[in-house]
């Protein structure tokens, strides 16, 4: 392996998410019960999983992370283009624009954290404009606005996380079931292989 260009391009979370969704579609990893499970289709799917298990794990974890960080399926490309065109009006560095798109800051504090020397480079008015530009294109979802509410909901949020964990465990259980089925298949393959090897030996003997 050779690294030719270490950093060819920077990607936004949105682009990565789109790519992951595509991979999941291609491999039909939906993490939910399929509508009609044809036997043939299922078999082929499981074979693939064997070699691509790492890819499946990372796409699953990463897409969950991105969804929890206000990434959603109905993000529109036009909105992103709109936001970027708006950001281009300001003298921002490329990585600063990328971070604004990724984090979608809702408060001045976070904006100041993202933009270096924000107080020297921009007036407060400009910063407010930046924030409204973000919220115009990406209106805050429920739970994101109203900071006081969020603090009160802290406990509930924890419960939410716990619930998710439970669901994960359930999923794992399901996976385990699948694995046992696979093992049967593997045994079959082993039998086949042994037959083949035996066949080859016979051939060799004939050759000799």
């Amino acid at each position, binding site marked *: *392996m*050779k*690294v*030719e*260009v*270490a*950093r*060819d*391009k*920077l*990607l*936004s*979370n949105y*682009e*990565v998410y789109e*790519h*992951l969704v595509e*991979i999941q579609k291609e491999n039909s990893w939906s993490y939910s019960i399929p509508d009609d499970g044809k036997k043939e289709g299922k078999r082929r799917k499981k074979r*693939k999983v064997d*070699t*691509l298990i*790492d*890819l499946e*794990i*990372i*796409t699953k*974890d*990463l897409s*969950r*992370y991105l969804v*929890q*960080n206000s990434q959603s399926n109905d993000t529109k490309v036009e909105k992103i283009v709109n936001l970027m065109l708006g950001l281009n009006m300001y003298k921002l560095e490329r*990585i600063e624009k990328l*971070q604004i798109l*990724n*984090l979608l800051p809702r*408060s001045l*504090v*976070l904006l*100041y*954290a*993202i933009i*270096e020397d924000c107080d020297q480079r921009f007036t407060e008015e400009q910063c407010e404009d930046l924030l409204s530009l973000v919220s115009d294109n990406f209106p805050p979802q429920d739970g994101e606005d109203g*900071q006081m509410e*969020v*603090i009160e909901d*802290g406990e509930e*949020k*924890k419960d939410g*996380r716990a619930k998710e964990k439970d669901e994960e465990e359930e999923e794992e259980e399901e996976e385990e079931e699948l694995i046992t089925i696979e093992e049967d298949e593997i045994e079959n393959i082993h039998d086949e292989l042994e037959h083949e090897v035996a066949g080859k030996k016979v051939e060799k003997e004939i050759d000799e």
Partner: protein
Amino acid sequence: MFQLSVLSDLTRIPPNLFSLPRLAAIKQELNGKYANKVIPKLGLVISVWDILEVEDGLLKPGDGAIYIKVRFRCILFRPFVGEVLTGWIESCSEDGIRVNMEFFNDIFIPKSLIFENSIYSPKENAWIWEMDSENRLYLDVNEKINFRVEEEVFNDVKPKGPENPLSVYENVNGDAKEEKANATPPYALVASCQTDGMGCVSWW
């Protein structure tokens, strides 16, 4: 947070993939080899993005597989120093805070990089930021927090050798298991939580 890198590699396509279209087979092999792995000094590979160039396949005597040199681009998780990221507090200890990002868990905020006037409370298992005498803010486990990347650490991980069959008898206490859990990660991030805007998302 994410970037594209151009790599080139010699891929081995085993005969059972010959039925697939060539690009699909190459992609599958590359994804199997690189996905969810750390490339030293480069970052954590998420998946193959696209394939740029495919050279003619080569054959090796005595091997049914085909070897193809490819140039491809892949998505890497490699935040730059100074970037602000969001994650969840995995655990707190006297030394600092461990942060979890679902797909990447080797993020550590040492105590020297947490807000000034913060103390660790072993009773509550949380870090407490004492802003002033009245306001005490808690950094609890599972809280969603913002943090800034300060340093990236790459470690050369040696390949795993065969396990010592005697270790089963020697380490009755299960030391071996602990060792596994504390093994140095190939790629880790040192983060800070010191400036305005960092810390729990709900504070700001």
